[in-house]
């Protein structure tokens, strides 16, 4: 049995991982589901970074998207609906060596999980949060989610969703200590790759909202955007998401946006005439809660024993 520390840097070099090494069970998502492409992209990011599979923990809630951990050949935690984030924070709290990914849905994260969403962004522990936002409850078969477009017909709102959809970007950007907010669509693999890679590279909590196709329950929503890329607005900046060569030709609308500029990020996020894709905000200097929660991790048993005895001493009569 090895102690935690001693083993951290063992045999990283003599192993090379292929995409297959990150692939778990065969995905059970519907044909055409955007989740498939996101999964493949995650595999690619892991492969490029050559992360040790046993050091990856993917945490999820409940939903179609939350099935993701099963499709990774890594450690995974397919927990409770809405509660991926507290669990992920707990995993990270004493295991700085683990690479924590969170897969969550628009219902999982913005509805039942909303309190944890706000607070996880605040904690800013080092992890990558991917929200698979298909604008609908997929797994439970077509109920309204917070991001369902107004008037879209669902099983709980057969007359059409009655509230304007929540804008997850403006809420996220409003959270003090948030450090990375990006948005991307599932159907642009090169950009999605760069986005997830940037999110993963970022130290702190990276929040990526991925607009995700659900051909089964949400045909309309994304088709608008897919049909006419003019509905998208590409955010470009030298500190932003790398836009691979050739890709930016697809976007007729582009702006330069400095991701360090929170006020601008707010404005971009708030303007709902176009769907921004790219990095809205990044603050590499935000405080990371895991640095505090990991304090004392390297204490050896003898020190602990001394600590307990000191504590007992103060109660001894």
């Amino acid at each position, binding site marked *: 049995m090895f102690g935690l520390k001693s083993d*951290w840097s063992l045999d990283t070099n003599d192993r090379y991982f292929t995409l297959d090494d990150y692939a778990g069970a065969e995905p059970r998502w519907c044909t055409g589901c955007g989740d498939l492409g996101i999964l493949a992209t995650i595999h690619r990011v892991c492969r490029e970074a050559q992360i040790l599979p046993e050091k990856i923990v993917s945490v999820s809630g409940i939903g179609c998207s939350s099935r993701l951990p*099963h499709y990774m050949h890594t450690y995974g935690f397919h927990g409770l609906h809405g509660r991926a984030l*507290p669990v992920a924070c707990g995993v990270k709290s004493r295991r700085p060596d683990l690479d924590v990914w969170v897969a969550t849905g628009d219902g999982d994260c913005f509805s039942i999980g909303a309190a944890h969403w706000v607070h996880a962004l605040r904690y800013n522990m080092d992890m990558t949060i991917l929200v698979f936002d298909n604008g609908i409850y997929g797994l439970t078969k077509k109920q309204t989610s917070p991001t369902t477009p107004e008037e879209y017909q669902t099983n709980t709102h057969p007359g059409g969703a009655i509230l304007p959809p929540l804008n997850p970007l403006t809420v996220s950007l409003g959270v003090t200590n948030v450090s990375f907010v990006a948005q991307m669509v599932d159907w642009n693999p090169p950009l999605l790759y760069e986005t997830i890679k940037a999110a993963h590279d970022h130290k702190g909590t990276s929040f990526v909202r991925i607009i995700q196709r659900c051909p089964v329950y949400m045909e309309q929503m994304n088709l608008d955007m897919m049909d006419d890329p003019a509905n998208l607005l590409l955010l470009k900046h030298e500190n932003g998401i790398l836009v691979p060569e050739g890709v930016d030709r697809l976007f007729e609308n582009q702006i330069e946006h400095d991701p360090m500029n929170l006020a601008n990020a707010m404005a971009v996020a708030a303007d709902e005439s176009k769907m921004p894709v790219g990095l809205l905000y990044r603050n590499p200097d935000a405080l990371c809660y895991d640095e505090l929660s990991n304090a*004392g991790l390297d204490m050896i048993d003898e020190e602990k024993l001394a600590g307990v005895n000191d504590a007992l001493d103060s109660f001894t009569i």
Partner: protein
Amino acid sequence: MNDIAVQQVFSDDDELQARDSAESIREHIVEIVSDSGEGAQKCGQTFGIVGARMGNGVWTVEIIPAEIQPPARTPDGASGIRIRLGEELMTNMGNEANLVVAFNEQVLRARIASGAYNSKTIVLLDNMWASDESEDIRTEYSEALAEFTDYGLEVHELPIQEECLKIVPDPRKGKNMFVLGMLSHIYSRDADKALDEITKIFARKSEKIISTNHELFKAGYLFAKENIEHHFEIVGKAQTDKSMVVMSGNQAVGLGVMASGMEIVAMYPITPATSASHYLADDFHRVGGFVHQAEDEIAAIGFAIGASYAGKTACTITSGPGIALKTEMISLAAMAEIPLVIVNVQRGGPSTGLPTKVEQGDLLATLFGAPGDSPKVILAAATISDCFHFVALSRKLAESFRIPVILLTDANLATGVQPFERPDVTCDWFSAPVDQSSWDESVLAYDWDEETGLSARPIPGMRNGEYVLTGLAHNRNAKIAYDTTSNQEGCDMRSRKLAALGRTLNVPEIHGDPEGDLLVVGWGSTLGTIEEATDVARENGHKVSSLHLRFLSPMEPGLEEIFKRFKKVMTIEINYSDDPKAPLITDENRRYAQLAQVLRAHTLVDIDCWSVVSGHPLQPGNISRVIIDHVTEIEGGK
């Protein structure tokens, strides 16, 4: 220098003289009651610690008002402390107080109403209100005094405020140390030990503050010596050679966490659990631990579960409403076999209920709260020492059995202060470092042993151990499985672990004779009270014994057999049961107290119960009456 002053005031002669004239008694119950913020609790705690250091048996329990800063001079605002001080080990708060120091007459009224005193209680009352500038207050004071006299109390009106004013300009801060001095003389305490403790209390404050408080103490001591006829001596016989610690149940829980090797406590504030986390927030760093205050109770347990999953078995500490919120997560921990320690410091329920008061109301909720079958280990601490040791035990059980463990304590243990033998912690107590060796690929993630349900678990970071934990029905391979046999197998294996643990438990020991007319069964913080009450009944010639359960899931073995040796078995609990004599209540529809309910199903013995939900700790006097009433009925029926 200060020390010299001490010597001067308390010359050996003085001490000797003091002791000489003192009446020797076996025990006394002392209360100090005041408005909130006047330091009565600090005074009483110090009095208790000095007692413990002198080898006395000590039990203290706080009197807590419901509001943060209740209005002054109101019965509802009564804040204070009770200290039971005796020659031998004290195990509960006792009955009516023998002596009480009151900072005003109104707070006394609340205590009288709750039955804390009897006609023999000596009352030492600050007389400042007799000459208050407000006529209303003067009237209130004299009216209350008349009331007290009617009640038969022996009231001594003393110029406490006046005496303190000689030393400090605002005696609200300071009167308590004067009173400590008074009490120290009355009970022949070792004044040096008391002065020591005062120094400790104000250790972080200035020299000036320390010396002022010393002065107040001495003034009180001398005042009592000169003006108070009562003078007692309670020789400390409880002292063993062993070193002792004295602390509250919540501090014991905190220390237990530290001694268990757990490194994460994730919590959300809730009364009366929070002070355990406060203590940890102060001291956890000594063992490299971290307290996470989460955004809510669900996040707290989720965080703990995450840490546990990642190899660091963690703890979450809460009370009733928090347990309710954690229900779904507890079920996940049971289903996915995540080691986890959950401390539930029970308070009065249902709902928000009585947040600062004691109840043993969460037994059924923790046993049965979750949908489906969610087996977990449930332990109940009966003493403050248990609070410490059971946390460490819980961590071990959680890991060995890959199961959530719930430790039940209560508001009574949480704030009570008691000395116990200093635990001898060794490195074996700590959890092993996170195992990061390679996992044997041929071993499945839930490689259940058919006999015991036990299995080893892969920890993230272990090469070849990769698996996906899920709360869905799953097979040995941790894969989601909806087939016809997997869910049954998983349920079987998780339940089997309780049977396996149960096999390792011993038949519990009976307090008293192994057979007789009546067996009283209890659990949790009522241990001392029930045993003392049983003893009284036995001394009165009744064939009564008692039994106290510490494991509630699985149950300790041999209960049915024990029960059958008594004519009647009843539980005594602090939770709700229908009064059998109440309107409409029949033998058939009566709703039983929680342990009684469980034991009836478990043993099919017709177990009776007596229980209350007044929010107050049980008093041995009342309980012995209850017991004698019940046993007399049986004897009559012979």
